[in-house]
């Protein structure tokens, strides 16, 4: 199991989330959690021929993003998922995630990935079923679809359950590929190209443009 929020986490939530005005100064994660985030990110984007997520400073970036750019339910899901991952490590390997090998970390994240895919799919299937049952189009109207010509208006995205693995993966990719290391070492970055060539031969080893 391991779904319970740890005491420290709850404390952090009470401090940071119940008073949004102080959020930018408050901390959402303790040092141990920050380390966990950093190591998870480094499994998602590891060091290969170029440095990985940890070297690119993606851990602190993810912590900042979850604090600043996500609503409270996603923050809670994130912290809960992070704690659950740590519990999982202790259950399975009798050690903290920080102490297990990269292979063991990958094993845990692979399992989490599969669970996340399955849960997301189940949610989507349920949503499709609900959509199919909607016969009265007026019922689909939301606050932003108020009384307009509903068939042309954008449909509000159905509210989906925030999931730890999806969030940390998204933020790792964003944080890494927009980092200086990610953009310049893993990808190819030119600050001021100065011209556009629409058709050049792809050179061997050419990285994708950042």
């Amino acid at each position, binding site marked *: 199991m391991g779904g319970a929020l740890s005491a420290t986490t709850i404390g952090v939530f009470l401090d940071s989330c119940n008073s949004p005005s102080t959020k930018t100064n408050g901390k959402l994660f303790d040092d141990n959690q920050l380390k966990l985030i950093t190591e998870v990110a480094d499994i998602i984007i590891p060091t290969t021929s170029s440095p990985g997520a940890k070297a690119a400073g993606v851990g602190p970036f993810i912590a900042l993003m979850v604090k600043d750019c996500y609503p409270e339910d996603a923050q809670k899901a994130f912290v809960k998922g992070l704690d659950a991952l740590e519990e999982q490590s202790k259950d399975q390997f009798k050690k903290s995630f920080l102490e297990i090998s990269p292979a063991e970390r990958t094993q845990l994240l692979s399992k989490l990935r599969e669970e996340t895919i399955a849960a997301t799919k189940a949610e989507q299937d349920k949503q499709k079923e609900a959509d199919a049952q909607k016969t009265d189009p007026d019922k689909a109207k939301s606050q932003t679809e108020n009384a307009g010509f509903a068939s042309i208006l954008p449909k509000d995205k159905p509210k989906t359950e925030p999931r730890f*693995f999806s969030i940390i993966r998204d933020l790792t990719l964003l944080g890494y590929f927009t980092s200086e290391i990610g953009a310049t070492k893993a990808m190819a970055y030119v600050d001021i190209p100065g011209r556009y060539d629409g058709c050049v031969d792809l050179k061997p080893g050419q990285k994708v443009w950042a």
Partner: protein
Amino acid sequence: MSNLNTKATANNTYDAIVVGSGISGGWAAKELTEKGLKVLLLERGRNIEHIKDYTTATKKPWEFEHRGRITEAQKEAHPVQKRDYPYSEFNESYWVNDHDCPYTEIKRFDWYRGFHVGGKSLMWGRQSYRFSDLNFEDNLKDGHGVDWPIRYKDIAPWYDYVEKFAGISGQVEGWPALPDGQFLPPMEMNCVEKDVKKRIEDKWKKSRIMTIGRTANLTVPHGGRGSCQYRNLCSRGCPFGAYFSTQSSTLPAAVATGNLTLRPFSLVNTIIYDKETKKAKGVVVIDSETKETIEYFAKIVFVNGSTLGSTFLLLNSTSAEFPDGLGNGSGQLGHNLMDHHFRCGASGRAEGFDDKYTYGRRANGIYIPRYRNMGNDKRDYVRGFGYQGGASRGNWHADVAEMAFGAEFKDQMTTPGAWNMGLGGFGESLPYFENRVYIDKSKKDKWGQPVLAIDCEFKDNEQKMRVDMMNDAAEMLEASGIKDVKTYDNGSAPGMAIHEMGTARMGHDPKTSVLNKWNQMHEVKNVFVTDGSCMTSAACQNPSLTYMALTARACDFAVSELKKGNI
């Protein structure tokens, strides 16, 4: 006291007042000052100085704290601006705080606004297309709206004039429905686009064409401004001055005359009507920092406060003679609101170009001009649509597993992947009388003004058009050998295209229109309205170039009338 008042009035008197400093207001300021008039240019927001105040223009991706994303706190302050992608960390300060300037959505309308010198000319998409007689005649032919009081020959020299100054790059095509202009060299299509162009034009025997986007980005140095550096960061403001904006182009020209006074933080609340002369004699300004009220006077007033900003000002300028808004004897002021509908098309994967790549970030795409309801083509809707789109090669690989991670995934993500080609339609919407705005006195903005209520929707004609917009895109891509073609219709709310037009339309007849063929108010001869509010129909082309041409034309007429003593 009376002496003081006289002196204050003299100090606050100019030849012309221009309300708003965006694309059309900047042009009005340039033209009027160059013709020798002392001009007061009023801008409701702060000043943004060219280059110096483009605070994010040279930042690298990793220098943005949230890498472009907006925070929950920013979302809270921007409930409208946050609805679509233009509002991002990259130019966050260019967009309004929605709580300062609320409006009432009778139906959903996404109103994107930027209150600062330059207005949306700083963030605009820069696509610049001429209207043709097809567009100017549509209202008359199918009976929607009223007839445009001008034809292509009236505006063509003014398109030439503004294009030569603004610098529009593009390809001459000889396509009558999308007239050629005074172009700088075109940007290059990439190899997939070139192939798709050839196949579409072969298959439809040039009854459909594809051209490189005509854009207000300089492909060569022009008028003392640098050429495009292919960074694709335009909407932050360009440190090279390589695209047309008020700051890069019209404002320096106006300043150089010595005839311009620019006053930021000047929210124009009303236009003052003088019943003796039957003309406007000036404006009432609310200093948007101090909330102090000041009057300014002039012989002519150009209203360029953006489509709905200008119409709000006119509706708010009531008098015994004009109880329903200045120059609103027709009752048309506020009506016939239009926007383009879009977010509908198709895309797919291009094969056979795996050994090719691109260099540089081209801030431009391709354009397929309207071909529907032209010649013998007749659809179950009227008017038509054009496509914007393009091909690109990113890091998308078909064989990447869902939610993949790890070393192999990282390698894939950093290796050039599949070429993708997409086409997205921009459709004309009709000028429906019932699509309208009016003043809602139940709310107040930050400056104590009432607000606008917006009651606008797309209707049956637009919906039918979208079927073609989607299916034609797929058909053309498939005919071009594109694989795995997928159609999409992501829905479109009025306002989203940021091409809002109409609400103070031009027309022949003072009984059914607000402005005459010179953008002059039928009923108040020294007031000219030359922004998007003047539009009699929307066509499907991006409209800003037409505002520029109409503005320069109206300025020429206004100064000539002023000299003749007619106004």
